[in-house]
């Protein structure tokens, strides 16, 4: 890659930082140079986020149908699966699975709700009063 061809397509770096790109200068020597980003990278990153949003929408549908608790939505939003969430809240997976159902969720004590809320980056209020957007 030649230094004058290093792409500067703003995207995932969001103006917060620039990435190092190795490129050859006019004398054919390698140098480190900054790149704001590259369109193919932006495309595939966006795709990864699309999948996360799909999971959030799936969770919402289940919550609306009365098949899942709000934890399901915030779990998806935090890019977690049951195994990872269980690790973070330090509760066995089979119990987390129960809390993902409306019945199990209703039985959660304040302390457990606080634990979930903290891990999911929200308040207990937000967890209890979550309304799916249609």
């Amino acid at each position, binding site marked *: 890659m030649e230094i004058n061809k290093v792409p500067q397509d703003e995207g995932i770096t*969001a103006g917060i930082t620039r990435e*190092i790109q190795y*490129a050859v200068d006019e004398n054919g020597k390698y140098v480190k140079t*900054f790149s704001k980003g590259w369109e193919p*990278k932006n495309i*595939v990153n966006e795709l990864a*986020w699309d999948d996360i949003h799909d999971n959030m929408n799936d969770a919402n549908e289940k919550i609306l149908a009365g098949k899942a608790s709000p934890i399901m939505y915030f779990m998806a939003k935090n890019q*977690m699966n049951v195994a990872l969430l269980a690790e973070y809240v330090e509760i066995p997976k089979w119990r987390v699975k129960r809390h993902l159902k409306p019945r199990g969720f209703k039985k959660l004590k304040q302390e457990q709700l606080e634990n979930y809320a903290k891990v999911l980056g929200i308040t207990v209020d937000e967890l209890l009063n979550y309304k799916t957007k249609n």
Partner: protein
Amino acid sequence: MDIPCDHKKTNYKHMKLDFEHIPAGHCENGVISSLLKYHGLNLSEAMIFGIGSGYFFAYMPFVKVNGIPLASFRPVPGMIFARAAKRLGIKMKKQTFRGQPKRAMDELDKVLEKKLPVGVQAGVFHLSYFPPAYRFHFNAHNMTVYGKEGDTYFISDPVMEYPTTLTYDELKKVRFAKGPLSPNGKMYYPIEIPKEIDLKSAIHKGIKQTADWMLTIPVPLFGVKGIRYLSKRMRNWPEKLGPKKAAAYLAQMVRMLEEIGTGGAGFRFIYAAFLQEVAEIMQDQRYFELSKEMTKIGDKWRTFSSLAAKTCKGRSSDPDGYNTVANLMLEIADDEEKFFIELKKLIN
């Protein structure tokens, strides 16, 4: 040389080491390179990468990241670092603190107090200074902590343009991220750097292992064989997986090639930079010529990314897009094979 430790009590409230933030292509090499520079040993990121045999290809369908088989352009995290340290004769102190976050933070403070910058492993999901789009549950990120003021730690993260900071709680959280490759508070710093370093021998060992791993591992998942194997599998993705999942698989490959920390083209450009440095150290122009070949290989991987991203974007199930990039991979596999056969001749 033993690393001099300043045991005098420093003012604990404010302590910022005279540490140079050097942005790098890749976090692991970047941290080691700048830690060594602090102690007076000047080796570039590319040199560490080459000596540590960072160049690789592996396709591991049984290891899944978010349900997607892993295609990697480097060996497992920590390996480049371990190999480079061994070949250079550098002793590193490494510690992990499973389930003991407080101890992990106390220990970090103690080492900082001795005026030693410390490398730490971190998860990026909770990394507050990262652009939001970077933040996935990836736990093998590395950064240097080089000081502390009250509740704030001074951080040199090689993939960031400028130095940054984290609060005590934020740093503790990322050092104890959960999930695959969890850091468990891992921290490391050099404790002994030899006076004389046999750079040529370290370079030879690094090159030899890279060539061997790319050419001769008798399992079809690794090296140039791995590239060919993945090329074959990829052709069936649209039919086998459906358009959505096929796109996700292909997109994941492009991310491994380009997303934060490869210096472009899945480390191929860093390797080309390494070869230029080798040409100077060995006073041998042939390495410079091979560097040019490596640049061409890197450029082909960039073309791969560009074409693959287009195919992913439409989420098309048209097998043509997949066949095009699969063909290009076969061409690249041939190029890399030829390249490492030539490179190996130089060190024998």
